[in-house]
């Protein structure tokens, strides 16, 4: 359960930052984005998968959340 921080980078892309692992990648796709909530399965630009417990609506960024590692990675 790594702690991750989600923020918009200068180019306006959603980035996923895991301080402990020095991992800073942009988010390629997120399962739920829009009316059905926010979160779920997240794919990063390096191909790794994470899972965020879905929030009812898009939060104010940046935000620190607990994520679960997904996809057996």
């Amino acid at each position: 359960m790594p702690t991750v921080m989600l923020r918009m980078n200068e180019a306006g892309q959603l980035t996923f930052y895991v301080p402990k692992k020095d991992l800073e990648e942009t988010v390629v796709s997120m399962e739920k984005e829009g009316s059905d909530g926010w979160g779920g399965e997240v794919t990063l630009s390096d191909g790794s998968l994470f899972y965020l417990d879905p929030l009812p609506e898009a939060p104010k960024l940046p935000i620190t959340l607990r994520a679960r590692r997904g996809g057996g990675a």
Partner: protein
Amino acid sequence: MTVMTREETEALIQEVLEIYPEKAKVDRAAHLALNDHEAEQAKKCITSNKKSLPGMMTIRGCAYAGSKGVVWGPIKDMIHISHGPVGCGQYSRAGRRNYYIGTTGVNTFVTMNFTSDFQEKDIVFGGDKKLDTMIDEIEKLFPLNKGITIQSECPIGLIGDDIEAVAKKKNKETGKTVVPVRCEGFRGVSQSLGHHIANDAVRDWALDARDDDDSFATTPYDVAIIGDYNIGGDAWSSRILLEEMGLRVVAQWSGDGSIAEIELTPKVKLNLVHCYRSMNYISRHMEEKYDIPWIEYNFFGPTKTAESMRKIASHFDESIQAKCEEVIAKYRTEWEQVIAKYRPRLEGKRVMLYVGGLRPRHVIGAYEDLGMDVVGTGYEFGHNDDYDRTIKEMGNATLLYDDVTGYEFEEFVKKVKPDLIGSGIKEKYIFQKMGVPFRQMHSWDYSGPYHGFDGFAIFARDMDMTLNNPCWAKLKAPWLKDESAEEALAASA
């Protein structure tokens, strides 16, 4: 030797690795790489932020160095206690040249060494009482201090002292900020974790002091300089540019900074991050908690400075953007003269760097403005994200070395034959004895400032003064040398 090809660089790395035993070879191979613009992510070509191998001569520091030496140390109106045995504080005292304004020993304390000087009995019975007494003495002797930080040395963590309890007690008694910092030297693989711990200590013990206090009059143009340690006056030469642009610099973190500035930082509109490595943590925290955006900037060399000033201005309204152009225009003749004077003397020279923090990538632009090529660079304690940012700055097929060992660095220099090396004091005399011009790029070799347009003039002069110094020709025996060339160059100065 001219520019090296991919194959030559690869062969060089293999050749240098040859001497290591099998296991060490595998480990070190991951830390040496050649730059490849195609690589989108640094982690695919270079490994960083890993423990140095025992037996290797590394150039890294410890977590205490990262916290006391880098982040907390320059805050001038606080007293930073080196809590533990006397050596850590004494041998790092005043070495970093963080300039500040104030009367040392009266209202500022940066170059002084305060230590609890642990003895055997403190290890056996614990040092909390001693710390308590020490803070009382400090209050008596230096009543104008604005706060105290307790910078732990290794034994504090090992014997399990409760410095947090002492800090809370003393905070109640004196009403001043007292910050316990758990930066014992054994934590982490380098000083980098010390930066992180220090950032977290700022967040937990100091940053939110004025959250409920709106008495500070803000303007829409408030900014903070984050991660500029005012080495040789760097922050000052950056600050004047920002102020000329019409911005108001509320805080300097932490060169020539004070605790009041730190407490006011949550009120600014934009955080300007120079040293990403040591202060990105607090910038991210302020973005999340106070909604303050942060941007990275680079004030080395006129090209990058102008680029960064425009980038900063783009976050404000048109009046700032117009003033930014005016400031750039104002300094243009100044820096063009500097380039006109020094570029012919430095053109085409090749530089190898090995430093820490932001410099391995930030100073590349300044060298390029002088027509010099950086052919190798590396971080003492960089992380993945640093190398991600470096790949774009460096030329293709140039050398990248992470946590380079003494042996590797010497071998690289022998083969690459750079005209100038920029690294630290421990490397300086080895390379000078090898006959290679050297600049100590941690504290600018007792010169500086190097930031901003004013700093660039000093930077260019220093590089010329070192590279074209006639002494390099005197290293050869008199009957072997060809003296006409060097003296002609010296005469042209």
